[in-house]
């Protein structure tokens, strides 16, 4: 690594291992300093190519820094810092190391200039995220973590196969736009891998499955990195792929539909991740500069406000131990600060004017408009209404207001509030001064979010969504149910596969084994018997000696039931050996 460039991911991944050796204040200081250092490092990087290494005859690029990768690196490092502040009170080194490794791997993926380094960091992300889920150390978390591993191993292998195929066909491993190869197997495999990580339905059921099972603090990290690095990868490799336009729009609606049925607060938010990523995927598919800028900007804003939302729900979980909306209510009296900060995030995700979502989500929607796609525009706007419905209305209503169940609560630990405050500030700053973000986007921005038409239309949309909410309030009462998603196939299906392998396949292997046993023993025993007889008479001394030794040995040990045959076989076998050796050497 040249002096001008230290990989920010390395700062986190290697630096994380300092943590187990510190205590108390020093440890907390390191926890904050590491992501802060990484953030500063990201800001100092100038666009260029760094960290090139030769491996297997190919160029592996660890530091491809351009506007796209840099803007993602800023937000990744920033949310890592926020997340670390949020986790200061947690006394589990393993979680911190896993979280920092996860963040560092995401930074690595963003700066990867070729497929090999991308794959390395991809797998590292999957591993550390799975570990993060598992570290809740509860049976449900272990099961969900293991399913997470399975899904991401599958995605990793799709990526691997796609990379190998691509390499075989083009001789190159560099990671760039793949549209020249559209339709080829490599294209599809790599796309599928990215789509799994972006939690695109039907491949995304792992997200609402795993995220609610993690600890309150781990979930903040989980929401940020896997899906957004996949969005980055899609922007890099699949910009303009038509199929993503419809898929993204469908995804945006899908998340919103499932969220209506959700009772678990964080699972509801997880479905909203799917919904918001749908906007980004749609933007990637639209492919225009405005659309790609929008996808990037929305990813940036989303990381921050989603972290804020999860931090709020996590704070409630931390203080009350509750996760289901049907159990919550009346917390506004005892957790007003949490509520206020949460609402900042809710307004941000709902694209309320003066908050971050307003200036980012609308870029994608406008791009749909400019590309003359009314259906997409309507779908995305519908999803916006749904977003406000759930995160801005349903969740806060049932969590903080609603039925007063006399829950005893207080504000969460101060570091959690500080972290939430940081994220809230960012959401407001971007919303009030969008040029701060716009100036970092990959393409030049001509877009003006604050137009009268836009502001009034948005206010109308949100306001009348609230009306609909209150009209149908009873319909929305949370019920203690789970909804089936595509993870059914490997949760129920997994049991079926296990039965198959343990049953049918084991029987098959047993019969193959028996066939070969019978054939081998009959065939060889017969020939052996002949040879053994000849040698017994022919070469007494050596043969008997060896036979006696092996017989002695076998007598010392506990034999299995077929004693006679075994002893005979031993003697005979030794005879063959001796006979062959003699034939060869003493000729």
């Amino acid at each position: 690594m040249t002096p001008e460039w230290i990989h920010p991911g390395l700062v986190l991944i290697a630096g994380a291992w300092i943590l187990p050796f510190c205590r108390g204040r020093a440890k907390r200081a390191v926890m904050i300093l590491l992501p802060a250092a990484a953030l500063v490092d990201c800001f100092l990087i100038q666009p260029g190519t760094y960290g090139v290494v030769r491996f297997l005859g190919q160029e592996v690029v660890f530091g491809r820094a351009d506007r796209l990768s840099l803007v993602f690196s800023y937000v990744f490092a920033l949310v890592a810092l926020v997340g670390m502040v949020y986790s200061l009170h947690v006394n589990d080194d393993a979680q911190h190391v896993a979280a920092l490794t996860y963040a560092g791997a995401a930074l690595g993926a963003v700066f990867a200039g070729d497929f090999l380094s991308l794959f390395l960091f991809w797998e590292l992300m999957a591993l550390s995220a799975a570990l993060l889920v598992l570290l809740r150390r509860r049976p449900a978390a272990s099961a969900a973590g293991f399913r997470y591993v399975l899904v991401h191993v599958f995605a990793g292998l799709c990526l691997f196969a796609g990379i190998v195929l691509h390499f075989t066909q083009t001789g190159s491993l560099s990671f760039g736009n793949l549209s020249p190869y559209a339709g080829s197997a490599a294209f599809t495999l790599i796309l599928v891998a990215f789509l799994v990580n972006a939690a695109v339905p039907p491949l995304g059921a792992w997200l609402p499955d795993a995220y609610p099972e993690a600890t309150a603090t781990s979930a903040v990290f989980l929401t940020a990195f896997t899906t957004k690095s996949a969005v980055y990868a899609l922007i890099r490799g699949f910009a303009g792929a038509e199929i993503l336009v419809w898929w993204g729009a469908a995804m945006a609606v899908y998340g919103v539909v499932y969220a209506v049925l959700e009772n678990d607060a964080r699972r509801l938010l997880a479905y909203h991740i799917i919904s918001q990523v749908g906007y980004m995927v749609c933007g990637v598919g639209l492919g225009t500069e405005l659309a790609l800028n929008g996808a990037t900007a929305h990813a940036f804003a989303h990381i921050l406000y989603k972290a804020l939302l999860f931090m709020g729900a996590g704070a409630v979980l931390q203080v009350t131990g509750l996760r289901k909306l049907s159990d919550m209510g009346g917390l506004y009296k005892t957790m007003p600060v949490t509520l206020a900060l949460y609402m900042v995030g809710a307004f941000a995700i709902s694209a309320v004017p003066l908050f971050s979502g307003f200036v980012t989500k609308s870029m994608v929607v406008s791009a749909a408009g400019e590309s003359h796609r009314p259906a997409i525009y309507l779908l995305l706007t519908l999803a916006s209404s749904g977003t406000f419905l759930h995160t801005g209305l349903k969740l806060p209503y049932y969590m903080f207001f609603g039925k007063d169940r006399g829950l005893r609560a207080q504000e969460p630990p101060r570091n959690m509030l500080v972290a939430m405050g940081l994220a809230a500030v960012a959401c407001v700053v971007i919303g009030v001064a969008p040029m701060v973000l716009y100036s970092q986007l990959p393409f030049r921005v001509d877009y003006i979010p604050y137009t009268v038409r836009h502001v009034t239309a948005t206010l109308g949309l949100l306001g009348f969504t609230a009306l609909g909410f209150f009209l149908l309030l009873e319909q929305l009462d949370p019920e203690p149910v789970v909804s089936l998603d595509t993870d059914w196939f490997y949760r129920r299906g997994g049991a079926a596969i296990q039965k198959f392998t343990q049953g049918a396949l084991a029987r098959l292997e047993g019969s193959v084994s028996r066939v070969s046993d019978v054939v081998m023993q009959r065939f060889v025993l017969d020939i052996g018997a002949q040879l053994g007889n000849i040698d017994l008479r022919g070469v007494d001394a050596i043969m008997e000696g060896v036979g006696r030794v092996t017989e002695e040995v076998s007598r010392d040990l506990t034999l299995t039931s077929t004693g006679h045959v075994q002893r005979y076989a031993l003697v005979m076998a030794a005879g063959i050996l001796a006979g062959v050796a003699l034939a060869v050497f003493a000729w």
Partner: protein
Amino acid sequence: MTPKRWLYAVLVVFAVGEIAGPHLFPADHAHFWFEDIPAWGSIYGLVSCLLIIIVSKLLGKLWLTRPENYYDS
């Protein structure tokens, strides 16, 4: 005023603003024809909300929901 009254008042303000806005400030143009419908955002907001809730609940009741312990083996 009760919260409900506040809400209705706000909604009226939004709707009026939406209808009046494009006439007072005609600078921006719309992408599509339906955006020129008066109070388009408000109408679509209400429609979307109702649609989402009703359709999702239907899907849930008919197909997707199961008791909480469905996956516990």
